[in-house]
């Protein structure tokens, strides 16, 4: 989303993200096209920009994890798992197992219930692309 965050992404992961975002953006552009044909484009404040239902953003959702798992998923020596740099497959399988009760948890099962498969994957893609330098094991 921003140049600053962009600097924090691995090159390989960035390329994956680029490809993944292409799909997402096509959808987004479609939404913009829809609204362009139906509504006047008056942009004076957020309320008017925000559509009735926005697209999901892995990044926006991922920041809600940071209250425990650290900003951008980066953590030092703490009781929570750092999420920065976690491979997408590991993030997705963990969250799905939490959500479906297949992996014992204290509270992650409850949190995971709040997310769809697509939302979990989108968050996983965000964290996978964050460089792990900030993790201090």
């Amino acid at each position, binding site marked *: *989303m*921003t*140049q*600053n*965050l*962009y600097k924090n992404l691995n090159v390989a992961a960035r390329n994956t*993200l*680029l490809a993944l*975002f*292409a799909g*997402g*953006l*096509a959808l*987004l*552009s*479609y*939404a*913009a*096209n829809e609204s*362009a044909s139906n509504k006047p*484009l008056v*942009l*004076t*404040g*957020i*309320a008017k*920009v*925000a*559509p009735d*239902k*926005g*697209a*999901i*953003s892995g*990044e*926006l*959702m991922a*920041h*809600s*994890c*940071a*209250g*425990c*798992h*650290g*900003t951008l998923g980066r*953590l030092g020596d*703490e*009781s*929570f798992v750092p999420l920065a740099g976690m491979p997408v497959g590991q993030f997705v399988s963990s969250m799905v197992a939490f959500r479906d009760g297949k992996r*014992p948890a*204290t*509270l992650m*099962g*409850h*949190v995971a*219930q*709040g*997310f769809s498969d697509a*939302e979990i994957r989108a968050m996983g893609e965000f964290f996978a692309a964050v460089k792990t330098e900030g993790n201090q094991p």
Partner: protein
Amino acid sequence: MNALNLSRRQWLASSAGLLAAASLPAWAQTPAKVGPAHIVIIGGGVGGATAAKYLKLFDPTLKVTVIEKNRIYIRPYGSSEVLNQHSSMDDLNVSYDALRSNYGVNFVFDTVTGFDPIARTVQTAGKQKISYDRLIVSPGIQLMYSAYAGYSEQVANTAVPSGWIPGAQTALLARQLQGMRQGGTFVLAAPPNPYRCPPGPYERPALMTEWFMKHNPTAKVIIVDPKDSFVTDETMMLGWNRLYNFNLPDDYVKKMRDKVEIKQHAGTSMISWVRGKDGGRTLRIDAKKMTIETEAEVIKADVINVIPPMKAGQLAMTLGLADASGWCPVNRRTFASTLQPNVHVIGDACIADAMPKSGFSANSQAKVLAYTLIEELAGRPAPEPLWENTCYALAGKDYGLFVADVFKVIDGKIGRVNTRARYLALDAMPAQIKLGARYQQAWLRTFTQDCFA
């Protein structure tokens, strides 16, 4: 800027734009030149600090200014641990230095006295006039000391502390509790809904019960409550049942006994809970006689801790952001005030439906707002908002519990989307309960970092 947004949207909507857009993510494209917008944030608590940090994290070119009264933030979360000597007052102090040096956030230490929402300027007691493009207000709470006869801020500062906004009253309460005579009575008056930190008025007496068992084993702890239930009630009282020989009210025993063994203890527990339906609502405080009068009785106490009813912080009143309820109505997606233009209200002061008034909520609201503002300033559509809250709480220093929720906008209101479970399982293993306590301690650190560093 509007013209720029417009042309960018038209470009996106064109078929050529579709192709071009598909080749690069929005954040990898040359950013639209919007000029460094100035975002002013009033209030440097959890909501304001997090908003400032994430705005600069997302876009270092933005100009972000926080206007805050105090040079040091005293964190309320975890502040009850000063009372049981687990933390010191100094442990509650949080510096703004990291936000200034690591993120380039400007700080103005001053008191806001008013604003002009049309000219977009804020006035301060120090006669400063600060212009903004967007204003975020995170006013926190104020305590309505006068809600109870005989109670006032002056009484709270000198004899019957509240400490729900931490500071000198916290230190006074700690001295009173730790110095209480052997066999003395500690009464805590819990607040009516809605209030900051839902499990907090129950964690505090639980921690003191644990402390008294060691240092003052004949002491009594009485919670008087205008409510009949509270967030985390089942798991909190199950902890008291196990740790402090507390007998749960019959209706709770009936609700819970199929899921978990509840002990019936002979004799009385050190801790008791007087509910609203049993006359637990506070009416009057007599600081000279050290009595608290509820609907049911007059209790002679040695230490009284009143957590009074609350409303949005004074700042919200000064700026005309609160309605008759005492809280600030906002658009549920953008947290834009519905009473004043170009102002966003986050944190405990805003009306956020199912989201509790907690630090975690304020932090989550701040990030979503920061993201939404950045997208708006860049002329991109805002994504669907999603927020989280986790309130960790302790029934004892090694007994952790929580409420954990995920929220989205549902039919115009903020609602929970994790509909199956939100509390520690009643049949949680001892190891999980202990782990919950370790998570609570870790969270105090990681959360403070996420907000302030």
